[in-house]
């Protein structure tokens, strides 16, 4: 149970960004599971059910909340000149903070920027990011969980990563 509850909590917290909401979701999911009894054919079916129910309940719980924190995606996507090449200040587009000392990435300030960037994603974008990059599910599995198209999942994942990357670059890129 511990492995499953940890997974459900991680996903619920990842989407709602709220400990109390995540706890409530874990309890709801497991109470439903107890009531359903052993109605699953194998471990994969159980895991798949847990991901689907947790994601949907978390997205419902989040609906309408904290919209004021959401960032404008367009403001955080790369910009291009008419010929399709990167536009913007040369030192900014060349900023590569990926190999700066690990401590810089994990500093409290950088961690806060990262958390805020993830928190500010629209809910469905954050859900895709968590399911793909934290839970390491495939695009196909995420599309099935969200009842969405493969194209939409791939597009949201890419845009979510770009938006988070942009905010990290604005913070860390000036230091490299």
């Amino acid at each position, binding site marked *: *149970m511990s492995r499953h509850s940890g997974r459900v*909590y991680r996903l619920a917290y*990842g989407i709602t960004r709220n400990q109390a909401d995540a706890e409530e979701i874990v309890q709801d999911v497991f109470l439903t599971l107890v009531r359903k009894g052993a109605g699953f054919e194998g471990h994969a079916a159980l895991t798949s059910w847990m991901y689907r129910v947790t994601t949907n309940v978390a997205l419902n719980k989040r609906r309408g909340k904290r919209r004021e924190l959401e960032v404008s995606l367009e403001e955080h996507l790369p910009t291009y000149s008419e010929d399709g090449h990167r536009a913007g200040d040369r030192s900014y587009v060349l900023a590569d903070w990926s190999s700066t000392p690990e401590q810089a990435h994990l500093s409290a300030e950088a961690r806060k920027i990262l958390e805020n960037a993830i928190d500010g994603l629209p809910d469905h974008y954050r859900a895709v990011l968590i399911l793909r990059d*934290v839970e390491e599910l495939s695009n196909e599995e995420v599309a099935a969980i969200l009842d969405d198209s493969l194209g939409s999942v791939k597009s949201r994942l890419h845009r979510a990563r*770009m938006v988070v990357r942009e905010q990290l670059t604005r913070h860390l890129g000036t230091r490299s």
Partner: protein
Amino acid sequence: MTCKDAIAIMADYLESALSPELVEKLEEHLHDCAPCRAYLATYRKTKSLAADAGRVEMPEEMKTRLRELLLAQLRERR
């Protein structure tokens, strides 16, 4: 290939989901384009930092409360 084309296919590139022809075109572009090399490196790093940040543990007291709740539920059903 332009920077816009290159950035659009970086997620597929990292997942080895591109055709050999597209990989060749992208790598040619990366060879000549320092901004896109920086973009790819930071995009890849962002993916791993976001994954690390998301690996939160369920607090012990929550595990205890869950266990007690489920035990009570099971006792009720008997």
